[in-house]
């Protein structure tokens, strides 16, 4: 049980960076430098704990640690290090982590320079009035150009970089000095210790033993064990069962979390639903007057149908989604039934990565085999009768004659690219209905672009396209900027004459014909030949706008001598049968899983 540390000796800071610039590595290095873990306990990247994070090298869940540090001045400081998620899908979590800090380390790769996420994160940090310390990392690299990178930061972001740190998270060079800079430059918290409890939930998760946990930053007053607290958005009251300080090895129990501190609150809740990120915790008997600003319920941004391949696994899928939801209140799901795919769930995600991660976890942790339909955004539709409806599944779009207006979500895209790819990128963005807002040369070789663009165009394989047209040298980040009217229509796909609901898409009218043609041609490649010829058509309403055929199969047999070993032949046939079972039968047509994602890859 540690003794109470005065606010003047606490430093709360986040780390922000573009992916791969070394955020997690530096966090690990700082932890080590403070002596919180020994060399042996240091599995690489203490901070990334999920399997998927370790595999992909992306921080999905922000982690925090409380570190003890004896500074050069001989004083004992508490450093609360708050790692932030490294992906645009989780930018709300980033903003809440930043709201819990007084300062942030802005990490920039000494060889890469400023990237799109660097800029996006800096804006969030400045919104929260944080003290920013520019940290150029990877100075050990032969290609490191720290001063040029610092100039880029000044040019692209307008941030004064006179005071900065140069470090190598890999070798540790510059890290002790950086920690001193944190103590010197980041302001201590300065909350009213006598006021009633006011704490920000900046992360929450589910623990199998302890139930739902909230990671909080206490702004005013304190949280005590046994206290009755209130969650301000829901007015729900809970008892504080336990309190802990986060620690890289395992949490440390405490009786109170004091003003300016971060800590973990144990409430015994069965789901994180009641502990949403951004919400305020206060004292139930003596609540604070105003909750902390900026609370938003997690809003799913992209949607996809998720279906079990084996139709009898629907309930298992429901259970699995419910279990994941305990830990991630941002997933939403509703049962949905598709003529083509049977029963499944229309599931909402924060973004594309979030979707991939959830699908992967469902398959991996719950042993489910799933088909996901192509992701789409949400549309707002004003009907001719004045009604307004929200569309999560393109198939549900009302008939054209009942629609007066359709609105689609836009984002502001930030792109940083070497100048040589500028032409390619501008062409790509124009193709994707982008509207240029800004084009700045941050130096003679790199350009910063800002575009307004429909999110739907991003969902359609934008990342991969951007990567391939720029050999991976451009970086990209975005932020939602609301809905705008679009001239959109629903495109249906008919296989053997039947509309396949799971393949419907919403497209700009002027692109409908070319998309329809590309779609049927791609399906033609994906759908294997069947016993009968299969017509594949694209239609808008009752108008067929594109068509093609999958020719009937001519031959499927192994024409070899088996003699009496008929079992062997039977087993080969059974294997083929199992292969077909993995496809979805639409009428009598076997459609492979890839077909449901094909629309994303249309040329």
């Amino acid at each position, binding site marked *: 049980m540690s003794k109470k540390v005065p606010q003047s000796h606490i430093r709360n800071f986040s780390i922000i960076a573009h992916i791969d610039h070394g955020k997690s590595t530096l966090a690990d290095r700082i932890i080590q430098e403070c002596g919180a873990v020994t060399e042996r306990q240091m599995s690489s990247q203490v901070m990334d704990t999920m399997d998927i994070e370790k595999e992909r090298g992306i921080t999905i869940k922000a982690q925090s640690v409380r570190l003890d540090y004896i500074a050069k001045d001989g004083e004992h400081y508490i450093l609360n290090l708050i790692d932030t998620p490294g992906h645009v899908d989780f930018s709300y979590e980033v903003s809440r982590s930043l709201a819990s800090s007084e300062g942030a380390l802005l990490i920039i790769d000494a060889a890469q320079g400023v990237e799109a996420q660097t800029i996006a994160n800096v804006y969030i940090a400045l919104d929260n009035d944080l003290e920013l310390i520019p940290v150029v990392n990877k100075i050990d690299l032969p290609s490191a150009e720290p001063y040029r990178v610092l100039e880029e930061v000044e040019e692209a972001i307008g941030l004064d970089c006179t005071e900065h740190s140069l470090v190598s998270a890999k070798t540790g060079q510059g890290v002790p000095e950086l920690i001193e800079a944190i103590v010197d430059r980041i302001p201590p918290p300065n909350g009213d210790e006598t006021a009633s409890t006011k704490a920000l939930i900046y992360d929450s998760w589910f623990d199998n033993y302890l139930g739902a946990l909230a990671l909080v930053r206490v702004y005013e007053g304190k949280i005590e064990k046994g206290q009755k607290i209130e969650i301000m958005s829901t007015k729900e009251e809970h008892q504080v069962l336990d309190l802990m300080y986060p620690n890289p090895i395992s949490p440390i129990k405490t009786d109170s979390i004091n003003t300016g501190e971060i800590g973990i609150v144990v409430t015994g809740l069965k789901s994180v639903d009641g502990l949403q990120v951004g919400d305020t915790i206060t004292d139930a008997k003596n609540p604070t007057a105003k909750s902390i600003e900026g609370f938003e319920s997690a809003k799913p941004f992209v949607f996809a149908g998720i279906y079990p391949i084996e139709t009898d696994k629907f309930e298992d899928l429901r259970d699995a989604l419910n279990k994941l939801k305990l830990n991630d209140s941002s997933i939403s799901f509703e049962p949905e039934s598709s003529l083509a795919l049977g029963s499944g769930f229309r599931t909402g995600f924060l973004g594309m990565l979030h979707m991939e991660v959830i699908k992967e976890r469902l398959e991996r942790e719950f042993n489910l085999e799933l088909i996901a339909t192509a992701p789409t955004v949400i549309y707002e539709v004003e009907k001719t009768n004045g009604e307004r409806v929200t569309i999560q599944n393109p198939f549900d779009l009302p008939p054209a004659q009942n629609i007066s207006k359709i609105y689609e979500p836009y984002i502001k895209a930030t792109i940083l690219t070497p100048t040589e790819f500028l032409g390619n990128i501008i062409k790509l963005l124009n193709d994707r209905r982008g509207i240029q807002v800004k084009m700045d040369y941050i130096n003679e070789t790199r350009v910063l672009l800002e575009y307004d663009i429909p999110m739907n165009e991003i969902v359609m394989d934008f990342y991969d396209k951007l990567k391939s047209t720029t050999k991976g040298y451009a970086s990209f980040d975005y932020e939602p900027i609301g809905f705008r009217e679009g001239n959109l229509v629903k495109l249906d796909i008919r296989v053997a004459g039947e509309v396949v609901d799971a393949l419907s898409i919403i497209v700009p009218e002027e692109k409908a014909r070319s998309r329809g043609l590309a779609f049927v041609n791609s399906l033609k490649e994906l759908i294997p030949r069947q016993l009968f010829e299969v017509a594949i058509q694209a239609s808008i309403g009752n108008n067929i706008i594109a068509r093609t055929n999958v020719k009937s199969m001519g031959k499927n047999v192994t024409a070899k001598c088996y003699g*009496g070993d*008929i*079992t062997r032949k039977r087993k080969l046939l059974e294997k083929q049968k199992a292969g077909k079972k993995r496809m979805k039968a639409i009428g009598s047509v076997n459609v492979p899983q890839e077909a449901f994602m094909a629309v994303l890859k249309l040329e």
Partner: protein
Amino acid sequence: MLLYIHIPYCDSKCYYCSFNSYTDKFYSRENYILALIKQLEFELKRFRVKTCNIESIFIGGGTPSTITPKLYEYIFKTLEPFIMSGAEITIEANPNSATLSWLSGVYELGVNRVSFGVQSFNNRKLRALNRSHSTNQAINAVKNAKKVGFSHISLDLIYNYMNDTKEILKRDIDIAFNLPIDHISAYELTIEDGTKFSLTPEVKQEDNDLAFFIADEIKRRGFEHYEISNFGKYKSYHNRGYWQLKDYIGVGAGAVGFKKDRRYYPSINIDNYIKNPLDIREEILTKEDILTEKIFLGLRSNIGIDETILNKDIVKKADFLVEKGKLIKDGKVYKNINFFLSDEIALYLL
């Protein structure tokens, strides 16, 4: 009752072949035949074979022409009382080892049908497949078989090897039809695990046209296409037995036997087999397994599927295929009009 006898010896290993055979165990031939006779005696009892009950015998391999007629004589002595008069007795033979005297020797024992592994009449292709015979040897072997008295002569061809063209295959067929044969088995090259070709699977081409081409060319010359790979003026009785799921005894290392709902697998390893020819693995087939087999075997050949073995569901689907012109109905039997689609149709029905 049918009887299959397996001879697991070859002079060399063809690059495509995964049949159980050895190129370095010739010294064990006598012991092998002794062991085989031991198993045969056991099987005759187990299958309760009565006198004159064996309708057909097939001696296959491996390469049966690596065994002298003298050794076969021992087997035939054991078998003699059980063989039905007029039974079809086939032996496989490789053109390089099926000499005039070997052919006449087995003919004397009562073998009345010979099937030559010719594969091709193109020397380059023969070398590429690692065959140990030449075109001329193959032609002479067939002529010699006719000379010693065989009236039923078949030959095996392989197609869809990488360099195959219509011209090459047409020439093979032309040469074949100039010989005194009444049957051809034309097999599509299959890449089998463990073979040399499995390391370079691109040696097989996926040209469906060639399959149809070869079938058309053979049929055009007057042979009936009665199973995917089999054509003839004379149709092999033994093979038809397999496709009808008749009981069959299988003796030898790598042979397979079948009775009612069991399949029997003697040891594949020749040394084990010689030591213990009665060490036989048994597989029990379920009703569904047998139905599956009846369906795909029926579709692969002109045997067809008897409606009475099918459940309502399958009958409905089969009738739909009749309506769509994919099957025809002959009395109570569904018959396939395109054997090359048989797996796809079986998958549709099952």
